[in-house]
């Protein structure tokens, strides 16, 4: 039996459902020595503003049990340099590129999307309305249903590219935000971004991050992320890209079974940049073992009927 790993995420055709998560894979090219970039389902590149940004002072990360806190502050080269310097080599490497974008205003989001819509080699736009580490923009939009709706609707007007708002988990009811995104014209949603969190050095009584607070990622957050994808899957019919602490194919399958059409790999890249071949081969092995020919057939197959479960 040949298994088919291809998936369709709201018009975005991917050869497999495993995507490198934004902020955890640089601009992709940093990892070219560890993994053949064309073998990834896609690469969601590091979040871009219109212009270059320096980000927060160090310290920017701290480890926590089974996870890490980061407050990078979206250091980046801006969309113009990205299009000029990074897109051509990404295209040459055969990478499927999802560009993660962030703005301080709705106008900035729309302007970045216009630039990307005109560029060659962009497969989709992921809207970062969920970064917990910047003061203006980002999560400010993602924590209000109206803000989510307004950003998505504005960007929808200026691009034909598949549009994927990345949702924050730092809200009471994440599914209502998936609905707001869908209603504004999103082709899919991705979740979760990191959980707003904090760590303190008790000797100095100072925060461990220069930004005081940061975003928690890694295996520590996975069960919460799985629950949130499950809730969104029950609320919207548009495709969901699930993420949060995935370290193995089994972890990825948890997300897919509760309704994710694809998954993103974030923190795991830091631990094991060579993880990609293992993930794909383990996923294929699972499908063989369960006699499932199309990976998309596993999506949303959670069995809630205890009596009737196989």
């Amino acid at each position, binding site marked *: 039996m040949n298994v088919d790993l291809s998936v369709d995420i709201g018009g975005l055709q991917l050869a497999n459902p495993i995507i490198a998560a934004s902020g955890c894979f640089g601009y992709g090219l940093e*990892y070219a020595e560890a993994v053949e970039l064309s073998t990834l389902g896609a690469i969601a590149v590091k979040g871009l503003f219109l212009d270059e940004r320096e980000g927060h*002072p*160090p310290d920017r990360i701290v480890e926590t049990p089974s996870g890490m806190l980061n407050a990078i502050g979206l250091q980046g080269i801006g969309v113009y340099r990205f299009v000029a310097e990074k897109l051509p080599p990404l295209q040459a490497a055969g990478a499927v590129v999802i560009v993660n974008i962030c703005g301080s205003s709705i106008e900035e989001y729309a302007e970045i999307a216009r630039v990307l819509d005109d560029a060659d080699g962009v497969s989709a736009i992921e809207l970062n309305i969920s970064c917990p580490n910047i003061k203006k923009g980002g999560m400010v939009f993602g924590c209000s249903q109206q803000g989510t709706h307004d950003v998505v609707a504005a960007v929808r007007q200026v691009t034909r590219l598949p549009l994927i708002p990345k949702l924050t988990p730092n809200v009471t009811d994440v599914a209502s935000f998936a609905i707001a995104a869908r209603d504004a014209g999103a082709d899919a949603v991705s979740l979760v971004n990191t959980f707003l969190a904090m760590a303190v050095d008790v000797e100095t009584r100072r925060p461990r991050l220069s930004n005081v607070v940061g975003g928690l990622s890694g*295996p520590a957050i996975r069960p919460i992320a799985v629950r949130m994808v499950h809730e969104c899957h029950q609320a919207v019919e548009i495709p969901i890209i699930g993420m949060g602490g995935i*370290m193995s194919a089994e972890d990825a399958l948890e997300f897919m079974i509760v309704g994710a059409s694809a998954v993103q790999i974030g923190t795991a890249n830091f631990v094991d940049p060579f993880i990609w071949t293992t993930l794909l081969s383990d996923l294929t092995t699972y499908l063989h073992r369960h006699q499932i020919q199309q990976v998309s057939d596993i999506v949303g197959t959670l069995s809630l009927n205890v009596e009737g479960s196989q």
Partner: protein
Amino acid sequence: MLVDVEAVVQKNTRLSSDYNVVAIAAQDIAAQALPGQFVMVKPQASHDSLLRRPFSIFEVLRDNAGNLAGLSLLNKQIGVTTRALFNAKPGDSIRCLGPLGRPFSLPGSMTQAWMVAGGVGMAPFLGLAAQLRAQGVTTTLFYGGRHAGELFYLDAFRRLGVTLHLATDDGSVGDHGLVTLPLSRALQRTPPATSAQIYACGPTGMMHAVTKLASTHNRPVEVSLEQIMGCGLGGCYSCVVPVRSPGGMRYVRSCLDGPTFDGTRVVWDQIA
């Protein structure tokens, strides 16, 4: 070429109650390693701790026949990973990714090299000393630690023909005080015409002080920084260092642009 291996521990040599040297069979990394480069290491499979840790490549090891046998790491136990390395047993395996980072620069015109080490910051200098001595460069090590029992591998440096100047916090050997004391004296008595490259690795305050001293005496200085790192590959933007640039201060990734930097480029008062 970037290599990630499950390297088998060959030997764990305890140097003191918290320092040790772990020899691992990472031949493919050792074969490519240049002085100043580092590896990202994870001795435990569990998620505690989750991330790898950066370590300078201490020695490139060869067996009795001269064949490449692996590399070693100089370790001081502080946290979870360093404790696991301190307790590593022969036969254990350690995930090791490398070689990474920009090596020390070795200007062809250099006739003298001064290495300034503080504590575990000695790690990149044994390999550098071997390289320098092989090139016929007159090499001196200024080495500071808390006490005599925390200055290691002195004989190994001497065997390479390296001149030693020691300093200890308690005065148990060498100068009583900071390693910048003997360095400062040497700078004052060395004629300005002598072309001496200075290298420094150790606590941030020490590297800052060495950079100031070197600048005062118009000596080039290269430092090896030890920022908190997430990935070692440039993916996470955690390990940034503030550097001077034409447009003002910029943050650059120490895993890619470093860990070695021209000390005068670093904006020392902005470093965490």
